[in-house]
């Protein structure tokens, strides 16, 4: 398998210069067009483009479409549930479906994924029960799934921390001499400013760990644009760490799939880590608490709607005759059914019992903790004795 080239070395000057100030800065994302270096296999109009390094003849494009449509529907349902007070928060993925589904479908069942907190599409592809994600955002767990069950680590909220965990895990794969496993670390453009992410790049490179860094550049760290994080395009930063860096059209599910697959193969074959920058766009808010109208223009969002990751696949499938209206209707019906099931399950979620707060702090007990639990239990029992009068 051909190794991904260090494309950064081909460019002497950064492709992105200093953004203009003020109002123009908001429009910067629109003008920062994808460069010729960007891998694209499906245009926004849904036309297939061949790339000699990335053949994708064997790809189930209908399946990728279905994945994307379903997770967008789940995402919409989650936002609605938050607006109705049933979730405490949601971090919408809308706009990033191609980046997540494309990269996650490139994983083998044995590969390990380390998500940030917006990787609902990756969770879907790994086979995690999506209710686990809803539990987290409802506030009844902090995640609480078994990472090894689906090879999908817990959501990590502190930005960038998981990149080091992914690196360590990949070092463990090396120590195990497991040849058919690799790791993927998900993070965003904002995370690239975190020291831990630089440390992860550095360590993974030094130890040649079997790891793919998958950066979804969704153009926003809440409100701050990528130009506030770096003077050079993210994928070019890889060169300084001795990693191959490659930029892919993050709204192109085929390109995300093909590039990630190749990088994972290289990692499994002992060729070391790589950095993929998926150039995409967060079409929703940072989270349901956010108001993006304060920092972006409607025209910019509209420009990116023209590059919608799902619509281009639908256009391709329609034009090529690989799918007809019945297929799309069927996926939509499946999506609605899935959303309804999730909604019902969310509404049925009980709050955790109060004494469960004290569980799982340590592997065994702790006299201090046991005393606090007993004290609080006695306190609660006092209310019961008063027949709940004070509750």
């Amino acid at each position: 398998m051909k190794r991904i080239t260090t494309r950064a070395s081909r460019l002497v000057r950064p492709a992105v210069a200093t953004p203009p100030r003020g109002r123009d800065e908001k429009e910067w994302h629109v003008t920062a067009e994808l460069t010729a270096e960007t891998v694209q296999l499906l245009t926004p109009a849904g036309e297939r483009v061949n790339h000699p390094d990335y053949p994708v003849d064997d790809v189930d494009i209908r399946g990728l479409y279905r994945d994307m449509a379903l997770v967008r529907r789940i995402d919409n349902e989650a936002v609605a549930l938050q607006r109705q007070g049933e979730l405490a928060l949601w971090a919408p993925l809308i706009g990033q479906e191609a980046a997540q589904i494309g990269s996650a479908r490139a994983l083998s069942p044995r590969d390990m994924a380390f998500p940030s907190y917006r990787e609902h599409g990756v969770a879907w592809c790994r086979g995690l029960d999506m209710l686990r994600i809803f539990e987290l955002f409802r506030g009844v767990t902090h995640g609480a799934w078994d990472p090894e069950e689906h090879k999908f680590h817990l959501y990590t909220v502190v930005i960038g921390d998981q990149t080091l965990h992914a690196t360590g895990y990949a070092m463990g794969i090396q120590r195990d001499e497991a040849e058919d496993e690799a790791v993927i670390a998900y993070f965003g453009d904002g995370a690239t400013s975190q020291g831990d992410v630089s440390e992860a790049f550095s360590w993974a490179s030094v130890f040649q760990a079997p790891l793919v860094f998958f950066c979804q550049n969704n153009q926003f760290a809440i409100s701050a644009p990528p130009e506030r994080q770096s003077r050079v395009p993210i994928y070019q930063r890889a060169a300084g760490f001795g990693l191959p860096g490659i930029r892919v059209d993050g709204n192109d599910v085929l390109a995300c799939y093909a590039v990630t697959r190749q990088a994972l193969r290289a990692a499994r074959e002992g060729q070391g880590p790589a950095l993929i920058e998926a150039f995409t766009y967060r079409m929703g808010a940072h989270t349901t608490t956010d108001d993006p109208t304060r920092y972006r223009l409607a025209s910019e969002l509209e420009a990116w709607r023209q590059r919608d990751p799902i619509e281009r696949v639908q256009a391709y499938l329609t034009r090529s005759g690989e799918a007809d209206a019945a297929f799309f209707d069927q996926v939509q019906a499946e999506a609605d059914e899935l959303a309804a099931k999730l909604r019902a399950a969310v509404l049925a979620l009980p709050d955790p019992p109060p004494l469960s707060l004290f569980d799982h702090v340590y592997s065994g007990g702790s006299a201090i903790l046991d005393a606090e639990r007993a004290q609080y239990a006695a306190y609660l029992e006092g209310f019961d004795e008063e027949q709940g009068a004070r509750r």
Partner: protein
Amino acid sequence: MSKITLSRAINEGLRRSLENDPKVMIMGEDVGRLGGVFRVTDGLQKDFGEHRVVDTPLAESGIVGTAIGLALRGYRPVCEIQFDGFVYPATDQIVSQLAKMRYRSRGHVSLPVVIRIPFGGGIGAVEHHSESPEVFFAHTAGLRVVACADPADAFTMIQQAIASDDPVIFFEPKRRYWDKGEIDPAASLDAALPLDQARVVREGTDVTLLSYGPMVRTCLEAALAAEDDGRSVEVVDLRSLSPLDLGCVTDSVRRTGHCVVVHEAPVYAGLGAEIAARVTEACFYHLEAPVLRVGGFAIPYPVARAEDHYLPDLDRILDAVDRASAY
């Protein structure tokens, strides 16, 4: 049985753990080829190889963050932070990730990571090499925080820490690295005092001195000196700073009626404050004096030529013993 230094005792404990469990690995700055700046890991890379004793890049957050990843993969990493004052770059990984992963996952994930930190002053060092940051970690639920005080304990405690399924912050009293004591290489870990228990290291009847790490020896010296004044001082080595073994402490205080807590860390909001509150609550009717504290001042760690004023010594401890007794 032979007399060896405390640093050698930890080395022997590490060696034992490496031998007994192929998943144990050591990682840190200069721990391999050099054997650590205090030589605690001396010879281990030579005997166990570069895969098990890893010289890492110079990045504390990276050390702890990758150790977490290795633990997720089934390894038991023992990380060395070169000096106490260098642990702060790793604080996020320790506090936000290492300590909370079991809780976050509702018990699905164990992170058996040990973080060894040489701590405390008294070696005439430059800034950032003499600190006592234990309370930052004791305040973080999910971590076990322990300190060894003598070679015999160091030998068993490091092995127990590595065998623990919880993350352990393992504080080593750097100025006692060269203290010698006997270890029993044949001792069974099962027979050893559990990692989370305190120990009476000298029995007495009049005053209880509570301490840990480097101050245990100073307290023992103070107890010896107090004998000349006809005062019988009991010394308790807390060993586990979080969770605290309050049972051992209150047993002692109920017998003596007087309690003085000694640590190098600043008195203000230090471990002594927590102990004083708990002892007062648990032993209120046995106490004949308030719980007193001896420790560092509420200042950044001072310059080497003045650290003797900052560090509790025999006289400052005896002064507190006198004040407690005079109530």
